[in-house]
């Protein structure tokens, strides 16, 4: 069995804009931050073009950032000309036709939307999540240690490689490790037992997928190298279609050592920057981003009350605060319960001795399309399996 490939892509260093791959479905209009903006491409009066060039305005972004009176002052054009200029630039940037929600519902719209999901590899968990993980946006899995976060991430890295009609994306995944080394042995075990976990997929399809070849592992120790990875390496892999899933395990570890107690503003800025980069990558390439986060204890009652975000009785808060929470599409919390069950399938028996495996719980803290609910699951040798009907 081949080992999972470490990331060794020799990408050429890109220009300051990063890789300008085409957003799937976006119009191929003029690049609005290109310094050598060709105003002739727009439908404008030559005297307007001359005035704009003379006023040293180089991009469409600048035109829209200036108000009507400001533009008039800079270019000495009339009010009507300036309004027409604004409208023309706006049309060049937002040239898509009008889409209704019904067209999105029927899958007829020209740009990718949040219709599809990435399967978790287990039908019970997929039911909890309304089909699986949404393809665009950052999903966070937060929980205490040994709750099963890494296991869920590895299972997703395998499930993304299945064909689309079995809930995958027919593509690979990048696994960014920030603290421990990647659990390679466990990955090999999971790969070996995939046919048993995914009994819904025909055996010949499962056996034909070279799972290990499509998982790229990156070890990142600090903020700087994470930045490099996000801005240089990931866009290359994504634009070549080699990956359709990014896992960051974990994002909290990156920020634990670098920022002290007084650097909260710098930390917030850094978090916002990474969140924005991940968000843009995710939407540009329709690839889910899974970030693993850790929990911290609530310091005081008021701290808890302010930040608890409607969670249940445990007095723990996700790390990284409000800045990070604002970037997320969906937050899942995983935890261990006190119950042990025998790992028999499909339903287990509740027992009090330690012979079985610990029952764990996955809870939806927030998601735009799901109510707050939870589901129990266990971790067995073939992976993560949801358990329905167990009373906790």
């Amino acid at each position, binding site marked *: 069995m081949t080992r999972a490939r470490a990331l060794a892509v020799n990408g050429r260093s890109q220009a300051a804009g990063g890789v300008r791959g085409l957003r799937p479905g976006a119009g191929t209009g003029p690049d609005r931050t290109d310094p050598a903006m060709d105003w002739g491409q727009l439908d404008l009066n030559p005297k307007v073009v001359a005035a704009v060039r003379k006023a040293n305005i180089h991009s469409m972004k600048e035109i829209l950032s200036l108000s009507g009176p400001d533009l008039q002052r800079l270019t000495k054009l009339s009010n009507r000309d300036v309004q027409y200029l604004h409208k023309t630039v706006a049309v060049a940037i937002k040239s898509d036709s*009008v889409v209704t929600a019904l067209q999105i519902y029927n899958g007829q719209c020209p740009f990718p939307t949040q219709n599809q999901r990435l399967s978790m590899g287990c039908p019970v968990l997929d039911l909890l999540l309304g089909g699986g993980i949404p393809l665009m946006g950052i999903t966070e899995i937060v929980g205490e240690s040994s709750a099963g976060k890494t296991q869920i991430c590895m299972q997703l890295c395998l499930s993304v490689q299945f064909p689309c009609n079995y809930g995958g994306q027919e593509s690979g995944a990048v696994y960014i490790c920030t603290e421990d080394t990647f659990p390679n042995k466990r990955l090999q075990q999971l790969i070996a037992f995939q046919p048993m976990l995914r009994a819904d997929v025909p055996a010949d399809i499962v056996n034909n997928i070279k799972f290990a070849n499509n998982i790229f592992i990156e070890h990142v120790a600090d903020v700087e190298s994470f930045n490099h990875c996000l801005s240089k390496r990931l866009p290359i892999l994504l634009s070549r279609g080699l990956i359709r899933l990014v896992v960051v395990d974990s994002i909290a570890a990156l920020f634990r050592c670098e920022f002290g107690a007084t650097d909260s503003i710098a930390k917030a800025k850094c978090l916002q920057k990474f969140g924005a980069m991940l968000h843009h990558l995710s939407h540009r390439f329709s690839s889910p981003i899974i970030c693993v986060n850790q929990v911290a204890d609530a310091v005081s009652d008021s701290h808890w009350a302010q930040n608890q975000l409607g969670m249940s009785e445990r007095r723990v808060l996700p790390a990284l605060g409000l800045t990070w929470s604002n970037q997320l*599409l969906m937050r899942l919390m995983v935890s261990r319960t006190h119950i042990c069950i025998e790992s028999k399938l499909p339903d287990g028996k509740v027992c009090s001795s330690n012979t079985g495996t610990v029952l764990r719980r996955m809870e939806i803290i927030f998601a735009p399309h799901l109510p707050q609910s939870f589901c129990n699951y266990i971790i067995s040798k073939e992976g993560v399996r949801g358990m329905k009907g167990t009373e906790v």
Partner: protein
Amino acid sequence: MQRDLGSFPLPPALRAKLIACGFQSAEDVTSMRATELSKEVGISNEEALEVLQIVRRKSSGEESQLSVGLPSFRKCTALELLEEEHAQGSIITFSSALDEILGGGVSVAKITEICGAPGVGKTQLSIQLVVDAQIPECFGGLGGESVYIDTEGSFIVDRVAEVAQAAVRHCHLIAESGRDEAQQEAVKEFSISSILSRIYYFRCHDYVELLAQAHLLGDFLAEHRKVRIVVIDSIAFPFRHHLEDLSLRTRLLNGLAQQLIAMANEHRVAVVLTNQMTTRFGEAQSSLMPALGESWGHTPTTRLILRWEGKLSHLVFATSNHQSRLQLHPPTHASVRGQMTRMGDDVVHWTLIQMVWGGNQTWQARGLLWIHYQARGWIWIAVGPGLAVGSVNPVGLEN
């Protein structure tokens, strides 16, 4: 008016042509349209327009004449404005408590902002509103269409379909239990696909696209006259990253706010924006407040702040421009600090400094506080930037 054409500041050549064709006074000219005038006199269209503009502007004076092609000032009284506002209607949410606190629903031609921590329900409320704007008029809605501008990518159409289904079911129940013919007719066309087909969706990936969309939205609303609500979810997200220059951000937000206000008024749409929360570090503790800065707080007419209270979402209604916060349930005990003057046996006038109730809610209304003795006890009415009423423990009155 019988003013002579010679008294207007017209170019001499034009004036000569007009007089040669028999136009002597202002009235002769203003009764014609630009195309007719240009044909009669033999001048170009632009020149005819110029003539008409000069003549009308000068001669209108105190009267407001609604002439073709010239936007003149419409004067109206406050009573007319009030009646217009009442006639406009608002977007009901099918939740009577929320409608009550909003004064009937989300008002049209105003900007409403929804703020809250992640996961509290801002996107849900926005989705509810774009569906509710389409409720037929016989059920108390506006029967309009909706525009949804998504900057975060949290518009998941399956959820919208669920909300639409609930609204359809609700209307069906109302129609079946009542005997109204119009309702039963309207409910036949009110289905999930009709609702979804009337939500226009725009996706903006960054603030440049959002600014571009705002420029194009005016024309879109002029074409689709039935749109009654525009939701931008969220306005904070694109402006909070990739924008290091805060003064540029303030400038862009102000410009955007002006465009939205103008659009709301001109096209009679309700504009709903969702905002994020940010932490503000005070001396002793930190508190949550709406993002995008203090000056942005002046833009919305109404600001809704959603917070978690235990496991339930709690709605705090705050009008913009001042600091008062009013809790949803009237307080049962309040203590007041201030300057007391007795004005009579049953009216006490306070100059309010601070009012505390419930142990931890502070309301600082810099205004008058009238305390009246009613049959059941003392009630207070505070007149300040807002108006609030509650009951007061008489112990608090002793100064």
